[in-house]
């Protein structure tokens, strides 16, 4: 499709603005000014043209409201429509973050209560709603842990232990927090090997970072043993709570020996992903860590008012303002809509849906870690199909032809040709059955007509895209062209 820049014609405009109603001030000094001819290169198009352009673009997207999105680890559940309206109520969306707290009492009350809900759900005492996404929550958690060790005179503790199945943000966050990653091996059941953990902990252990259920969708059954090993060595336990959709009202991280965890509101608590964000990654923790939480924290005062204050030993600030507040509004709405029984139902059905898919697909795809029930997701291997020359990437692309989004592929790294499938609780049995049919028919195609799979996708707005070329012939901005110039003749600004 043409780019928005190609719609441009001098003089068009997509807005009407009031006339300047005050006397003009003297111009900026020439040296500081872009100059009256200094163009910004923005397009000139009418409102209708702009709308049509982006509406047409939008039709090329797959999305949850259109069809199933079984992207493992991402919890692509339905996003309630009401929440979009609520977050847009003017009193909530139109308020400046630096107004005196008494003038933002509604937002603060909501934030305070959301914090309490999240503590109850996770079994912790302290909470910060500030982190903008899971990865920033991880950074926040590790900063709490580092502050804790420093406050106890152990600044040397800088090793973060994590299994080889960890999400990429875990090791990347450890680096950002100036820590060293120490890998812990998984055993033949896909669970952390306690003996290896025992070998790896020591006087430099800052924390053990674990996703539970882990990235294979398996609950770490020996969790008590694992967290005790770390505690005995003087370290703390961090839970990556990206998979909390499996545990709502079922179990609490705070009771399993974890000291801190983050939650992804944009997964478990139904706030939309927006094509890659905004998210929100609140962090909940034990009392001993709460003193270090980021600035500001929402406090309930004796007179019933709310205020924002800096905790005495706060490690600092992660964002310019309080949080991705608009996302918090939606997560609050979700918890208020469901209540305790509704949240438990979410996890129960998430587990049933995942186990149902696992059971139905077991005959057609390899499942290297099938030793009993999975939690909210599971990981298949495309090894069997790979032998026929059909890779997991091909299976993913073929699913697009059948109208489904693909599972997460090639993650976790400990499974060959991994296909990580998370249906979520908002898929109906009928839709799950259609997905199963599609997967089975792709498995059959892989045997009988592999080219159908390796040529996929064919029913999508574009065919398979060349990622190697995208890197080699890097084109990441639209070149500026003057009228009459042929494509490619232009130069970058």
């Amino acid at each position, binding site marked *: 499709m043409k*780019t*928005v820049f190609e719609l441009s014609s001098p003089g068009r*405009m*997509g807005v009407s*603005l009031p006339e300047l*109603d005050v006397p003009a001030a003297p111009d*900026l000094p020439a040296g500081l*000014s872009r100059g009256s001819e200094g163009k910004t290169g*923005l397009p*000139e198009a009418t*409102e209708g043209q*702009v*709308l049509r352009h982006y*509406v047409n*673009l*939008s039709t090329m997207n797959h*999305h*949850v409201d259109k069809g199933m999105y079984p992207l493992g680890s991402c919890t692509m*559940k339905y996003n309630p429509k*009401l929440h979009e309206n*609520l977050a847009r*109520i003017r009193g*909530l*969306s139109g308020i400046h*973050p630096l*107004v005196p707290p008494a003038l933002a009492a509604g*937002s603060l009350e909501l934030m305070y209560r959301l914090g309490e809900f999240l503590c*109850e759900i996770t079994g912790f005492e302290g909470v910060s709603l500030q982190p903008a996404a*899971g990865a920033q929550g991880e950074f926040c958690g590790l900063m709490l842990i580092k502050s804790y060790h420093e406050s106890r005179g152990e600044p040397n503790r800088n090793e973060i232990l994590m299994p080889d199945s960890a999400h990429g943000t875990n090791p*990347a966050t450890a*680096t*950002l927090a100036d820590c060293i990653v120490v890998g812990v091996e998984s055993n033949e059941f896909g669970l952390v090997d306690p003996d290896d953990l025992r070998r790896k902990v020591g006087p430099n252990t800052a924390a053990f970072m674990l996703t539970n259920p882990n990235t294979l969708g*398996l609950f770490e059954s020996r*969790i008590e043993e694992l967290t005790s090993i770390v505690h005995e060595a003087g370290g703390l336990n961090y839970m990556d709570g990206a998979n909390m959709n499996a545990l709502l009202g*079922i*179990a*609490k991280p705070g009771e399993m020996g974890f000291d801190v965890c983050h939650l992804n509101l944009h997964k478990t608590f139904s706030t939309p*992903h*927006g094509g890659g964000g905004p998210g*929100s990654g609140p962090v909940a923790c034990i009392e001993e860590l709460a003193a270090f939480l980021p600035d500001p924290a929402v406090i309930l005062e004796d007179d019933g008012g709310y205020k924002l204050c800096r905790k005495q030993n706060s490690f*600092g*600030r*992660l964002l*310019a*303002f*309080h949080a991705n507040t*608009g996302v918090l509004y939606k997560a609050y709405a979700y918890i208020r*809509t469901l209540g305790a029984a509704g949240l438990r139902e979410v996890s129960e*059905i998430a587990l049933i849906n995942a*186990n*149902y898919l696992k059971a139905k697909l077991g005959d057609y795809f390899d499942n290297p870690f099938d030793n009993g029930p999975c*939690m909210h997701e599971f990981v298949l291997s495309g090894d069997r199909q790979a032998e026929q020359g059909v890779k997991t990437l091909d299976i993913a692309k073929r699913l*697009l032809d059948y109208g489904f989004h693909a599972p997460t592929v090639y993650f976790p790294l400990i499974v060959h040709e991994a296909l990580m499938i998370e249906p979520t609780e908002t898929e109906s*049995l009928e839709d799950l059955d259609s997905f199963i049919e599609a997967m089975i028919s792709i498995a059959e195609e892989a045997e009988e007509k592999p080219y159908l799979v390796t040529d996929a996708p064919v029913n999508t707005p*574009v*065919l398979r895209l060349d990622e190697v070329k*995208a890197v080699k012939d*890097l084109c990441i*901005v639209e070149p500026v062209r003057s009228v009459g110039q042929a494509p490619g003749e232009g130069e970058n*600004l």
Partner: protein
Amino acid sequence: MSRFVPNGPAQREKMLRAIGAAKFEDLLEPVPEKFRLKEKLQLPEPLSEFELTCEFEEFARKNTGADLVCFMGAGAYDHFIPAAADHILLRSEFYTAYTPYQAEVSQGTLQAIFEYQTMIARLTGMDMANASMYDGASAAAEACLMAMRITRKQKILVAGSLNPGWLEVIRTYLKRDDFEISEIPYLDDGTLDLAIASELIKDGAAAAILVQYPNYFGLIEDLQPVADLIHEHKGLFIVAADPVALPLLRSPGDAGADIVAGEGQSMGIPMSYGGPYIGFMAARMKLARKMPGRIIGRTTDRAGQTGYVLTLQTREQHIRRNKATSNICSNQALMALANVIYLSLMGEKGFREISSQCYHKSHYLEKKLLEIPGVSRIFGNTPFFREFAISFPVSSIELRDRMIEHGFLAGIPVVELGEGAMLVTVTEKRTRDEIDRYIGAAAQVCRGGSA
């Protein structure tokens, strides 16, 4: 059964049978008995759609600050948002999609973000931009880390006129024993003290100088001498730019910036009590491979048609893990879409008009306030944009509180600059009538409140 969960008792039973489980609890076998919750979570009883709407309206009513006329800024601004923008943001196709990992069914998101990258690059005068960072402050912090990676130096010089909240975020991201942050003070006119900067930079240890443009006090700095200074000492020049000022100002790229980071809230995103906003980051092309965050690239499909994909992914955490350029994964993609729609609607002329009205209206207010006895400038004649620091003859905290009674959010007290110092912002949304009433109310408070 909630309205979000379609599988009720009938389906449940059928599915459990297919799984080979007698009851749901069988699926919890891997969860040790002692960790299985015996009691329900202690949460309030569920609300219906209607009841929840009422509760939210009550929250909104308690946010009385939203009804006041806003002259506050300091990183979040009350700008006009065209109605058409939200119609695009509310399209399920955009907001209920995930990160565009499967490019063939994500061309909408991918092309829109490619266009966003282009607009940010053009506005800042840079070669390329990423998509996106969490907010302006974290983008500035990531820009510092990027400069340190590129130069292999471990010191950052930060203008003392940087937004203090942003400085705090930078300090958090750079909190390591081997990293050093030094502040370059500003002169009486609010611009950077270049003499001290030259001293601080002499040892050649600085990875970068970071300057805000316009700075925290709304003042417009001449970037060129700073660029020359840091380049002479083999460091990079980071500019934290306000995009709304850029249609009027010499672009950071033209003035020698190597990395430009900033906050995109002003371009079509509501203030929403602090977020979600969006951090942007732009750079010279030769630095593209060191950038954090997502980058979209153009390519072709098997039939030679143009299409878009996530590119330069080997920088990112899912591939490079502990050696990645950043840990960022989910970002603020939908806010990038808000920016690109806003900028498309505004276009060349509209965005320049917005910028120019902010400039003229803030100057009008400043000029009129100076007519009130006892009100004075803090930074002399230094040019400013949209926001200015001014000194009142009463305590600025008192003024702020009294102005609330008159219906105004008068500004942000900056007591570091003096007891009466206030940072005041005027966007294009403020009408002459509102500005004149502000002046009247401020004059009244100043007259009566000198005690």
